[in-house]
């Protein structure tokens, strides 16, 4: 089994307050792993470390067996799709929001357009290209953010409670896509969820975090 992430003696602090401490964790690739725990337990901090937005205060993280360094952090970030509970959409239209991640990767207009219509169709947002992102409902905004993550076709998806605060239609659609991605067997997926039943049938593993530490897990720790 290939390993996507290897964490070794990783800690993270806000100021002097340590919020995460993981002695050892190996997250396999190509499967869905659920991240469970109560509010404030450190789940989001873990995902931020795994997205390489934040850096650990101590310890090391390897990504597909390569240690994460200052030099390779950006290229690793580009292999990850990260969807938060309340995504930020740029103050422009839906097209520009989804296209931006492709533009900064140097894709040409033709490829961007075809990729965009494909992902917008997948999240049931066809015809919304010219709509201002700020005028969308919460569910629509979440779907645009998902389209943005799907557009770059990352190897790893990090979902931070993607279905909370969503209407039933968006909730079902989001779950459907996560399940499709999970079943494909080619994507490494970590999902923070309060409703384990949403992903129970596709998640192979789980990690339970409490007070910044892993208290239960089906993975090698």
């Amino acid at each position, binding site marked *: 089994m290939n390993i996507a992430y290897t964490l070794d003696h990783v800690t993270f602090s806000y100021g002097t307050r340590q919020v995460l401490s993981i002695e050892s964790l190996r997250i396999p690739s190509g499967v869905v792993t659920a991240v469970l725990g109560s509010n404030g337990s450190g789940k989001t901090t873990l995902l*931020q470390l795994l997205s390489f937005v934040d850096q650990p205060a101590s310890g090391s993280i390897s990504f597909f067996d390569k240690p994460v360094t200052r030099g390779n952090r950006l290229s690793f*970030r580009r292999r990850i799709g990260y969807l938060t509970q309340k995504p*930020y959409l*740029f103050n422009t239209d839906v097209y520009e929001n989804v296209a*931006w*991640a492709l533009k900064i990767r140097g894709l040409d207009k033709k490829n961007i357009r075809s990729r965009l219509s494909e992902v917008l169709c997948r999240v049931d947002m066809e015809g919304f290209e010219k709509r201002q992102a700020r005028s969308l409902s919460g569910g629509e905004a979440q779907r645009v953010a998902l389209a943005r993550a799907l557009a770059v076709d990352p190897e790893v998806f990090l979902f931070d409670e993607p279905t909370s605060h969503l209407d039933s239609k968006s909730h079902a659609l989001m779950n459907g896509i996560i399940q499709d991605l999970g079943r494909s067997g080619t994507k490494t997926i970590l999902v923070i969820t309060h409703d384990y039943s949403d992903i129970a049938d596709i998640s192979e593993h789980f990690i339970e975090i409490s007070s910044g530490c892993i208290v239960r897990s089906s993975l090698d720790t």
Partner: protein
Amino acid sequence: MNFIIQGILDGLGLIIRFDAEVYLIIWTSLKVSLLAVTSASIVGIPLGVLIALKNFVFKRTLILTLNTAMAFPTVVLGLMFYAFLSRKGPLGEYGLLFTPFGMELGLFFLATPIVVNLTLSAVQALDPRLFVTCRTLGANAWQEFCQILREGRFAITAAAALAFGRVISEVGVAMMLGGNIKGFTRTMTTAIALETSKGEFELGMALGIALLVVALLVNLALYSLQKHSS
């Protein structure tokens, strides 16, 4: 009262008749102010973004200094630059005193703290999720910087507009570093001061009206930006 009304009418007459002297003074004012604010924006906007995003020792002290610099009396700034640019000063050999470039230099230092400070505030007011989103979408530092500018474009443009308003309406730097030389460094504000003291009230009034029109246009631009952003 008749004296004031007559002065306004005569001033308007000079503007309507496209008086060469009036328009040369307006052009000089606009030119030096635009150049000063453009250079201040080129330097000040990236600096403002950088200060807003980075945490470093003495950050608060720097912000406090910038706040103070925003309220710096223009005559004192003019005096300081006069000391540097005058023949006996360290930059005296370059002959910059009483030249448009000398004025632009002083106005640049007047505008830069305004641009830096207001850009800093604009970036700090942005949703912090923007920075995380840029990074998680794979942006490098330059792409993130460009996106920050794009998201804060209305407030950052307003910063430059406010700096322009301050620069074009000041008199201390323009007088001390420009010397109010006719056809060369005479600006609207220095000309108003001079012409009024000479009793040429209508020319002073014409330039005053022109200055008010510029201020009105800047405010209109700001208002439309605010309306657009909200």
